[in-house]
């Protein structure tokens, strides 16, 4: 068996680290979570020359080993824990040729941990353009490493990197700086107290507030308590350390790198003059948002209609192929319609993730952070909250995780609490189907009424989020030190491969994650709807025949009456009617009630649930939408989904907190049950009241 090399890929954000990871591993990658926390863990396998395999971990981007966020903690926890199964045999530090000086800071820190390290200088294709030339031999000698000059865009240098990885045993592990020189007395004392430990490792344990796992616990506690200096003194030492590292880097780069400014071209300034402009900047941002909504609504409707009718005919085809029986009806009335309810919104999710990943990759998102910071701060949010709020339109779960780079705890907490108001893609199928039922077709200055309604719902979600942030900012009494540093990366044309991989991976995990819940719920629902207690259910045929004996019904009409009588007296019907009094004032019948209750697992279940309920006992294989349009309100008469009940339902879904996964993530991110429980009760109560008022006014 060949030996596997553990490789950790480390680098600053915006250095193209993920492109290097994609180039090394291709499709051999998987995304998981670090145990106990929701930081994404990307790992993959790379085949090296001579049959050796490398197990590569793409660590979260960080500027330094002095961690200031959960994501960055992951990096230092791994690098300091020799007992971790992923502890790297070698580190590959990815840097960007245009920001070499700053990127090398992290490199010197990793070298001082005595981990064999390769330096990747990425984006080499930009060198000529920027007038940069490098003396690689000089740099390799003085940085005490091997360098791979890589361009993922042009696919250059990856083979050399692979060769370097397979020969990692030849790498030097000598330090870059001598830490003791900063404060000889302090560091010599530290070293003599813990003679077996690496001085830089000791220093990190003292200065970093991270969880080092169970290994060496006692010793680490002892080190961490070795605080003969005050917090401010420690910070001064860290400042000195940083200055010393830059001196080392400057000395090396003075000879190893030349930049011919005359040859450098900079389009960034031209772009930024417009994109971050006081007026044009905001106008461009608005147009981009409009385009996204138009895409989600208009462009994705074609594949969606296709999927909807394909599932309807697939269900019918299956029914004709298989013998009549419980299994067939479970398949055609439970599983297939339930799955159809999730597959149908793959196009929209893909579009959303496509836009978000393009905005992130191109460097535009940082400009939005810059433009919005001052405005968002009025509402107790940070400019950085805009990233979670925008990605919240895809899904609140990654959005809440994206709040991690908000340094201020209060701003971060408020962002977490209000993000679920943002219209996520799970609300989309509910919105789309109801809008198509109650809002007439037709256009207003080129935009359809239906698209405008959708846009209004998005604005409503955003407005509510911002408004509740404003209130939370007034209520919450949290004092936390604030600081705000955002890198403004260079504009880059997004790499097709990165975008495609992100869209594929996110869509896949979304569909499979939600798919499992939906499948399980559809099966349970089918059982509950197909069986019932007592003679009302079992003798449905006779009872119905008796009731309608004096009317001249065709056999088809009679069958339908029987089916609906059965459904009403099934387990699900009984439960539904039990909760009906609560939801009737909102204009819903018990079937919608069941769909709402099952939506508390995940909103997107709504359409699948209705599809399953309406399929049971219904022979003609119609699309979900047509079936919903045919439903009649049992008390008021007229279509069940009319303007009043439709608006009430839209508002209910806009405000209610109906997503267990989001609640779980909020619990993990805030480390307390208090916040998710508050979210659940306040949001849902608010949703109920608003929906109630809306229906009572409009009916």
């Amino acid at each position, binding site marked *: 068996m060949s030996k596997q090399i553990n490789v950790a890929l480390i680098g600053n954000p915006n250095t193209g680290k993920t492109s290097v990871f994609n180039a090394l591993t291709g499709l051999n990658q998987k995304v998981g979570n670090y145990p106990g926390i929701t930081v994404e863990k990307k790992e993959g396998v790379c085949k090296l020359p001579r049959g050796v395999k490398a197990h590569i971990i793409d660590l979260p981007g960080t500027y330094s080993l002095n961690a200031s966020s959960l994501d960055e903690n992951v990096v230092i926890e791994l690098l300091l824990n020799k007992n971790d199964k992923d502890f790297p045999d070698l580190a590959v530090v990815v840097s960007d040729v245009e*920001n070499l000086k700053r990127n090398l800071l992290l490199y010197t820190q990793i070298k001082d941990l005595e981990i064999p390290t390769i330096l990747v200088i990425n984006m080499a294709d930009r060198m000529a353009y920027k007038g940069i030339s490098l003396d690689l031999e000089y740099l390799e000698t003085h940085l005490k490493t091997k360098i791979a000059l890589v361009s993922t865009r042009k696919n250059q240098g990856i083979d050399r990197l692979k060769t370097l990885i397979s020969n990692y045993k030849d790498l030097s592990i000598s330090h870059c700086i001598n830490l003791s020189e900063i404060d000889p007395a302090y560091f010599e004392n530290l070293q003599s107290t813990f003679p077996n430990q690496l001085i830089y490792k000791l220093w990190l344990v003292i200065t970093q507030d991270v969880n080092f796992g169970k290994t060496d616990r006692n010793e680490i506690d002892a080190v961490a308590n070795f605080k003969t200096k005050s917090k401010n003194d420690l910070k001064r030492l*860290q400042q000195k350390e940083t200055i010393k590292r*830059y001196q080392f880097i400057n000395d090396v780069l003075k000879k190893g790198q030349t930049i011919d400014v005359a040859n450098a071209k900079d389009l*960034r300034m031209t772009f930024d*003059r417009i994109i971050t402009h006081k007026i044009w900047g905001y106008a461009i941002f608005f147009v981009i948002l409009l385009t996204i909504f138009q895409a989600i609504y208009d462009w994705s409707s074609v594949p969606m209609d296709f999927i909807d009718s394909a599932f309807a005919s697939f269900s019918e085809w299956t029914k004709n192929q298989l013998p009549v029986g419980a299994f067939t009806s479970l398949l055609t009335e439970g599983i297939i319609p339930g799955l159809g309810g999730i597959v149908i919104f793959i196009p929209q999710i893909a579009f959303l993730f496509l836009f978000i990943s393009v905005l992130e990759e191109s460097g535009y998102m940082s400009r939005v952070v810059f433009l919005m910071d*001052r405005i968002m701060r009025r509402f107790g949010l940070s400019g950085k909250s805009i990233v979670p709020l925008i990605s919240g339109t895809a899904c609140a779960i990654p959005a809440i995780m994206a709040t991690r780079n908000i340094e201020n705890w209060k701003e971060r907490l408020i962002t977490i609490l209000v993000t679920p108001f943002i219209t996520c893609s799970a609300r989309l199928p509910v919105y789309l189907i109801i809008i198509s039922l109650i809002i007439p077709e037709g256009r207003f200055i080129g935009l359809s009424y239906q698209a405008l309604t959708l846009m209004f719902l998005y604005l409503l979600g955003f407005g509510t989020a911002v408004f509740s942030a404003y209130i939370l900012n007034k209520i919450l009494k949290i004092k936390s030190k604030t600081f*705000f*540093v955002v890198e403004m990366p260079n504009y880059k044309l997004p790499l097709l491969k990165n975008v495609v991989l992100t869209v594929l991976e996110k869509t896949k995990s979304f569909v499979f994650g939600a798919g499992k819940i939906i499948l399980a719920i559809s099966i349970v629902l089918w059982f509950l709807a197909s069986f019932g207690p007592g003679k009302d259910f079992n003798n449905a045929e006779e009872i119905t025949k008796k009731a309608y004996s004096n009317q001249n019904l065709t056999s088809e009409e009679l069958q339908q009456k029987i089916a609906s009588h059965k459904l009403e007296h099934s387990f699900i019907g009984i439960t539904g009617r039990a909760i009906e009094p609560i939801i009737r004032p909102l204009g819903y019948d018990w079937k919608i009630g069941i769909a709402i209750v099952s939506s508390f697992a995940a909103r997107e279940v709504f359409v699948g649930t209705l599809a399953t309920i309406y399929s049971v006992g219904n022979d003609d294989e119609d699309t979900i939408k047509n079936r919903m349009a045919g439903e009649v309100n049992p008390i008021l008469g007229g279509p069940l989904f009319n303007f009043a009940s439709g608006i009430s339902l839209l508002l209910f879904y806009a405000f209610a907190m109906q997503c267990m996964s989001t609640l779980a993530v909020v619990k993990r991110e805030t480390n307390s049950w208090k916040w998710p429980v508050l979210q659940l009760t306040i949001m849902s109560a608010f949703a109920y009241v608003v929906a109630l008022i809306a229906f009572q006014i409009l009916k």
Partner: protein
Amino acid sequence: MENTLANIKKGERCIITDVSSIHIPLKLLEMGCLPGNYVELVQVAPFHDPMYLNINGTHLAIRKETAMHILIKR
């Protein structure tokens, strides 16, 4: 007027002289905001806040409240 980074004008280029205030996050120093390095104000958002800076070749945005603690010479 005090010589702090918060007071420089758009397009102006200065040299950083002191960053020892404890209100300056370490992260900013690590990104190159160190004495002796140049700093240029690239763009400002409305109300002069936040400020989009070019510090020694690194482009970043910080709030005015942080910029107030960074001393410069023109």
